[in-house]
């Protein structure tokens, strides 16, 4: 348990954190922009990887495997969107239904619960073997960082377009949006599709990174995504106001999450308890705004009431 062990483990934690950071950007779009908590990502976080790995193994080129993974992820988002907007099922429940259905879909895509992929045989884009002692242009950290920058640039452009503005307005004030002629249902579906597409992309990277796709790899993904969103907000919230920078903050939130996790593991924490720890941390951060308002009202407000 020397510091060197921790130091050696850090590049891996950063790479993994960045990949989960991409996933968290997807969560940010539903949770923050659209104001919908979408749980289907727990399923999509496996679907993207399953599609990508199976396609690579059947000889498809990397770019095609990634595109198809994203498209399949978007279809999962479409399913949640249709359940929610056209069938009136509450968003959380619609997400859970999609997530459950995806479990079977993922099994069918993979044919079994766990599919390994050999990085010697296939030319993978990212891998845990590529974080150290490789030429810098092959380094997974650099490649994922570039993916994030491209993704942020695309999203920054998109949310500045008429359609992107309509999507933001839908999340902010559906009443106003409809009064201004915005079809809020279409926009919610669109947002869910974009979000799940991004998550599927992250999933495709993650399964390559770890060298396998597992049916359970998406379990609790929403919590990790939320954790990254919240950490990014808490750490960089005062610094970053621009939308693009906020997205970068979310990705960095993922890195911090995995770095802290690495430290916790290094300290000898029982790894069986990690998910419980994540859940507790996220619960605390989600509760803070409410607790602050409810139990510790600002002095200004109390003064007014006293009058």
């Amino acid at each position: 348990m020397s510091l060197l062990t921790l130091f050696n483990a850090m590049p891996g934690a950063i790479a993994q954190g960045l990949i989960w950071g991409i996933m968290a950007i997807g969560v940010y779009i539903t949770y923050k922009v659209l104001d919908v908590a979408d749980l289907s990502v727990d399923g999509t976080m496996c679907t993207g990887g399953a599609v990508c790995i199976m396609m690579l193994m059947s000889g498809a080129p990397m770019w095609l495997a990634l595109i198809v993974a994203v498209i399949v992820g978007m279809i999962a988002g479409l399913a949640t969107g249709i359940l929610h907007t056209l069938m009136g099922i509450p968003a959380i429940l619609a997400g859970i239904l999609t997530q459950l259905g995806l479990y079977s879909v993922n099994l069918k895509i993979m044919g079994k619960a766990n599919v390994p992929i050999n990085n010697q045989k296939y030319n993978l884009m990212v891998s845990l073997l590529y974080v150290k002692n490789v030429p810098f242009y092959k380094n997974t950290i650099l490649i994922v960082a570039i993916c994030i920058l491209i993704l942020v640039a695309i999203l920054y452009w998109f949310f500045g377009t008429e359609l992107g503005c309509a999507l933001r307005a839908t999340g902010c004030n559906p009443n106003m949006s409809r009064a201004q002629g915005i079809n809020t249902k279409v926009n919610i579906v669109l947002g869910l599709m974009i979000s799940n597409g991004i998550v599927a992309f992250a999933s495709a990277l993650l399964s390559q990174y770890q060298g396998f796709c597992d049916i359970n790899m998406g379990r609790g993904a929403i919590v990790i995504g939320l954790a990254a969103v919240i950490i990014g907000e808490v750490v960089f919230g005062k610094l970053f106001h621009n939308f693009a920078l906020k997205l970068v903050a979310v990705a960095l939130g993922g890195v911090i999450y995995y770095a802290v996790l690495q430290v916790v593991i290094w300290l000898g924490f029982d790894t069986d308890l990690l998910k419980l720890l994540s859940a507790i941390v996220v619960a605390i951060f989600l509760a803070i705004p409410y607790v602050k308002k409810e139990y510790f009202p600002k002095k200004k407000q109390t003064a007014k009431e006293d009058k």
Partner: protein
Amino acid sequence: MLKVENIYKTFNAGTINEKTALNGLSLHLEPGDFCTVIGGNGAGKSTLLNAIAGTWYVDEGNISINGIDVTKMPEHKRAKFLGRVFQDPMLGTAANMRIDENLAIAARRGKARMLSSGITAKERESYKELLKTLDLGLEDRLTSKVGLLSGGQRQALTLLMASLQKPEVLLLDEHTAALDPKTAAKVLAKTDEIVGKDNLTTLMITHNMKDAIAHGNRLIMMDSGRIILDIKGEEKKKLTVEDLLNRFAIASGEELNNDRMILAK
């Protein structure tokens, strides 16, 4: 311009909370009509505006705007014809978005929203000029989030947004009710100006009888989901609050028992 024919709306039908909010109501507005709407609580004023706006569909009857039947047209499609300002200042604007972005969204009402820029530099300049006319100092805060504005400022902005794309009908749902008297007067003056400039066909709900008399060329009073008084032209110009109270008593067969309206005398 606006034709509302024999519309009915019952909420919670078949339950103990059943409430007939619109009871065979008909209303025709001519182009350029500025009609004020008064009536007690639960008279169906807001329900009428929501029916026109398409918040939900009416049970029976027809609504048409400028000759186009909109009875079964969903809210966001109908928005093409309508400018709306709500009673709650929070409802009309997107708080997390900037002032100029809100205006840009309103400028695209009724148009297809695709991948062209959500707001252009040229637009921004024109919004600056437009906001100057409000005289609230908003022209210097173009990139501020709307959530930072006061209720009055937000309401004035909503009014501007509602008229940015000239609407066939402007619907104002007690849009000054949540404001302090001074701001309310300012927003009302701005309303008169905007309606007058483009000669907009307008339906304005108010709880203030004086305002209802002072503004517009027509006044309707509602009770139990129906129009019980319709006063226009010369008659409207000579109208006083006393007249209105007396005529309400005759028309509805009971004393006017709405505190808010009586206090507003």
